[in-house]
């Protein structure tokens, strides 16, 4: 299926951010591929210690504990990610919001974060996986691996290289039911669903109402970075189908494609690609 010159492949997995990540690489030099795969896994584990809301030792946990009372210094990497989240919040008219409507003050000069209300909290659960995949992809590029698939939690994917990687989209409430197969070609994907099987209430909230989303839709987004795909799969899902369609018509320059998966299994594509 792949380029004959890329005769070797390597597969590695790890647990991070409360889920499972996979690294699948193609190339010519098996020893090199394995070293790169391990470097990617180590990067995922490192980012888990920065971004994971499941780990009380993580940087984001420290921010959540301390930033209500004072401006907390964070490292430049986390600060840059929080700034990107803030830009995405503005772009999506507040529908993507890591602070769920709470006000967060970012001071660029000192790289500090401060909450204005006491019970505020930042949740990078949605965006962390995409950011980790983007960092993983950079490692592949740095070390000359031109073909690979990285995925986290089966909801975030980076397909790297010139060949297509097939990705099946599952029905959000019937995991065994495949609603569509798409071919990813040098492209990132993120999928967000209102809820999954066995889940009573959505863990995605509408930041404008503070209430969990209802309905049983899912939104899949293809974008040029996995972080961006996360912003919009979550943001568009929170908007709802109609508003999301209008949004992507208005912002055609974003160059993202969205697929809306309805509860009946139908998939409706809109956006630029």
């Amino acid at each position: 299926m792949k380029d004959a010159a890329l005769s070797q492949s390597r597969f590695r997995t790890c647990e991070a951010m409360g889920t499972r990540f996979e690294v699948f690489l193609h190339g010519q030099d098996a020893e090199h591929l394995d070293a790169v795969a391990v470097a990617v896994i180590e990067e995922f584990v490192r980012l888990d210690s920065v971004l994971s809301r499941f780990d009380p030792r993580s940087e984001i946990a420290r921010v959540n504990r301390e930033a209500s009372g004072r401006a907390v210094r964070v490292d430049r990497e986390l600060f840059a990610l929080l700034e990107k989240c803030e830009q995405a919040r503005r772009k999506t008219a507040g529908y993507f919001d890591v602070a769920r409507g709470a006000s967060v003050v970012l001071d660029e000069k000192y790289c500090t974060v401060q909450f204005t209300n006491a019970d505020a909290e930042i949740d990078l659960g949605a965006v962390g996986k995409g950011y980790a995949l983007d960092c993983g992809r950079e490692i592949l590029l740095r070390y000359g691996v031109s073909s690979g698939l990285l995925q986290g939690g089966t909801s975030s994917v980076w397909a790297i290289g010139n060949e297509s990687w097939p990705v099946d989209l599952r029905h959000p409430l019937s995991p065994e039911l495949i609603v569509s197969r798409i071919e990813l070609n040098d492209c990132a994907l993120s999928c967000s669903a209102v809820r999954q099987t066995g889940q009573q209430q959505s863990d995605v909230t509408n930041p404008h109402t503070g209430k969990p989303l209802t309905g049983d839709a899912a939104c899949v987004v293809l974008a040029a970075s996995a972080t961006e795909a996360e912003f919009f799969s979550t943001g568009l899902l929170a908007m709802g189908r109609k508003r999301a369609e209008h949004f992507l018509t208005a912002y055609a320059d974003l160059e993202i494609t969205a697929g809306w998966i309805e509860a009946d299994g139908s998939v409706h594509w809109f956006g630029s690609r």
Partner: protein
Amino acid sequence: MTVTRRTFLGTAGAALTANALLRAEEPPVRVVVIGTGARGSDLIRALTTIDGVELVGVCDDYPPHLEQGAKYAGPQAKTFSNYRKLLDELKPQAVVIAVPLYLHYQVASDCLSAGCDVFLEKTMCYTVEEARKLAAQVIASKHVFQVGLQRRANAIYKQAQAMVAAGMIGQVTSIKAQWHRNNSWRRPVPVPRDDASWAALEKKLNWRLYKAYSRGLMAELGSHQMDVVNWFLGAHPKRVFASGGIDYYRDGREVFDNIGCLYEYELSGENGKPYTIRVNYTSICNNAYEGAAELIMGTKGSLYLTSAKGLLFQEKGTDVVSWEGGQNAADTNAAVVTAGKTLKLSNDPWAHRGAPIEIDIAEGNDTRDELVSFIDHVRRRDAKTIADAAVGLADCTTILIANQSVETGGWVGFPNP
């Protein structure tokens, strides 16, 4: 002794973080980082989150690493490829060093001579001789010096150490520790194998695999865990026997991918009566089942420790009659015999361990916390850091005598200074 879940909680965590913050109005400590590879970058990121630290410079002789370090450090930090130039130009108050092991002594010694306080990554030095010279220089210079043995700053380990000291697991008789994983320990090289620069670059990036630069698994992994042993026992080993080899990854590396050590510690117990503690340490690179952990075994309980979790298992069947039915042994036996129904024991192979009591103070990142502590000592001009030159020297000697034992094929005693 009755131990409840809450008996020992909440004593170790908070004190450390507060000190540096209280002095935030004081002028910042001017810090530089020498060596900005993977570990150096971790340290840079942590330093930039600490109030009262101004990261004024970073240095590395490998441009991609320097670029990465500069990105994390921020635009206020000047970049250097030569650390002596950095020392001359910036005259920093404190230096954080994360260079390959064979350079530890030279770089640290030059920084001390330049009048700097020094945080030096573990292992302290490449040879015992160098570690001794450096320790002497530290003491003569009166500078603040700390080795990067971050379990000493980890809330779980601090708690566990206090539990052992308080006798909660009785007399420690045996320790089993390991760092097992399943990968080649090989870092990728950013040019193809047929590139003219590959061989030199491979040696530079994979310095951990070559004897001239590295002391292998014992120095890079074992040093953390053997320091925990030295710390908890309040002693250094008396002697060691070790066996190791390049068993699986026969890929040109020069350091072992498999090593097992048996250490003996001689301690003096109650009434000055001596007793021996044996410590089993292994590190392998092709099976991760046991992960990285230490198991401290005492007559009344065991502590299972990792950087993220600490578990206390109390010994069963020592102080308490644990058979069904009650405290009176005779009655209990009679009851069992006459009940007419076979008592079924669990077939879980780990049932004898019982349910653990968890050390649940897990807040705080130990890499950040060890640096918070170092900076605090720098401010207070306090040489008694959490891992000072004496601790670093003992740790360095402990791991190097194991390597020596593999080479010589016999027991090696802990050398007298």
